[in-house]
């Protein structure tokens, strides 16, 4: 089986032919689906665990302390120990809570982020679901997550949860507009919504450099708006620990709480990979114009490392925001969106359309 770390399409084709040769076409198809599903599940779980560990270490270094360092070397098994502890906890059922909705809510959040991960290009040829409306699909699917939050708040039958869920619902729905418009700017630049086409159009340079100032403005707006989308950073009053004791997931315990927690970190991962794919070139190495030697050195690093490096950089930025800034109040948050981000976004889109029409960007 050929294994080329620079181009996974050879490997996937070989597995495809192997399966179709061995079994009937229907069974081969179902086996392929199962393999992809299991790999994504494992990937999701492992990345989720290590993201929690990464956040704890990053925040510890910013706060002049060490972070987890006892469980395993450098504390690497800390999250696994936490997961085992959460699995062993009692699942408290609440009297007079709506049982069906209460149990279903964490799953909706997880399913939404699963569906979004499937559409991300990890490397050349490692792209599970390649729609021609890739960007639109990611936006649509990540909006399903807010239903999970609202259901969780409502069905908990508790005043704290209800307040938290209502705040969060208003916040997420407002900021989706800004996220969509910011992504639209790169769609205008590259001319297609398909994620693999967007990545390939950045072969001679990333859109954040090729699209100069409007693209940088779009990038900043995308970062701010997506931090608000995922209920993180200075916009986390849905779960503000110092105000409402955990907001919409107050009443969840054990593995259900672990799902919300995991879902939040995976949403951060998805948002970071979307930013990396659309603005920073996905798995494309950094090429600078005609510097052949430099470009050769950059090509030497496999694309999958480029992808993860960029994603981790953006996640670091998101974590940096969270641990530095105080929290915004709900009305200030909505003011920020409707009075500042949205007008700037609209004007930016106008400017970008004009620039693309006149050709005033690096093609």
């Amino acid at each position, binding site marked *: 089986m050929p294994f080329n770390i620079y181009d996974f399409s050879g490997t996937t084709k070989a597995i495809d032919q192997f399966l179709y040769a061995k079994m009937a076409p229907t069974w081969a198809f179902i086996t392929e689906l199962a393999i992809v599903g299991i790999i994504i599940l494992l990937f999701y779980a492992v990345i989720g665990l290590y993201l929690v560990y990464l956040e704890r270490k990053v925040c510890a270094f910013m706060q*002049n*302390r060490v972070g987890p360092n006892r469980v395993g070397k450098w504390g690497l098994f800390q999250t696994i120990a936490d997961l085992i502890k959460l699995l062993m906890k009692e699942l408290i059922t609440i009297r007079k809570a709506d049982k069906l909705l209460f149990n279903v809510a964490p799953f909706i959040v997880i399913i939404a982020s699963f569906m979004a991960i499937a559409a991300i290009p990890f490397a050349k040829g490692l792209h599970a679901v390649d729609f021609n409306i890739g960007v639109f699909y990611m936006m649509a699917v990540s909006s399903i997550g807010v239903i999970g939050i609202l259901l969780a708040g409502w069905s908990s039958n508790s005043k704290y949860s209800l307040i938290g869920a209502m705040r969060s619902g208003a916040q997420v729905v407002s900021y989706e507009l800004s996220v969509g418009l910011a992504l639209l700017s790169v769609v205008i630049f590259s001319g297609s919504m398909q994620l693999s086409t967007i990545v390939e159009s950045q072969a001679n340079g990333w859109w954040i450099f090729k699209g100069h100032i409007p693209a940088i403005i779009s990038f900043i707006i995308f970062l701010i708006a997506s931090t608000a989308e995922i209920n993180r950073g200075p916009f986390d009053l849905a779960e503000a620990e110092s105000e409402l004791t955990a907001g919409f997931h107050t009443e969840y315990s054990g593995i259900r709480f672990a799902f919300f927690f995991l879902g939040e970190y995976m949403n951060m991962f998805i948002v970071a990979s979307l930013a990396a794919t659309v603005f920073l070139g996905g798995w494309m190495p950094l090429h600078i114009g005609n510097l052949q030697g430099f470009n050769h050195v950059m090509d030497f690093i496999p694309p999958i490392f480029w992808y993860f490096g960029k994603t981790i950089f953006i996640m670091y930025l998101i974590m940096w925001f969270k641990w*530095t800034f105080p929290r915004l109040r709900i009305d200030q948050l909505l003011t920020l969106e409707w009075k500042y981000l949205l007008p700037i976004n609209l004007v930016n889109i106008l400017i970008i359309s004009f620039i693309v029409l006149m050709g005033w960007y690096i093609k």
Partner: protein
Amino acid sequence: MNSVGKYFSDIFYGLKSLWKGLMVTGYYFVHPKQIVTQQYPENRKELKMFDRFKGEVILKHDENNFHHCNGCGICQLNCPNGSIEIITDSVPNEDGKAERIIDKHIYHLSMCTFCGLCVKSCPSNALAFSQEFEHAVFDRNKLTKVLNQPGSRIKKEPKEPNAPKPAIDTVPKSNPAN
């Protein structure tokens, strides 16, 4: 025009202030030498408390197992919440007269508030604070300690100027409370 100008100047002012905050945390992120955490159980050998640290109250014993407590009970009177109980005994001394000696000097570590009045008011300078801070036990009865070690006796002081130096410096002999 004024409000448009204010709109943009607000944005720039806001972004600048946010950037300054980010620089502060970013500085600490890339300087791991500034970490102040001490890894506790691993550094027990090097960990030394200050000399005057109030760990617990002890009766000072020297190397021949002599202490200075004559059972007067002034510390028991001064303790605000009854953490000290003195039990004395009466034995005949070398002149044949009955003399009071200390039988048990019971100290309830669980109730002590570390106010220091017992140490300060002892007329024979018998009590002091030790720097021991690891007091956690599984059984509450272990926190009631008898301070005079078994087999120890009071050191008969000849009235000489070389009185033993106390562990903390210059405690006055006059007692503000009795």
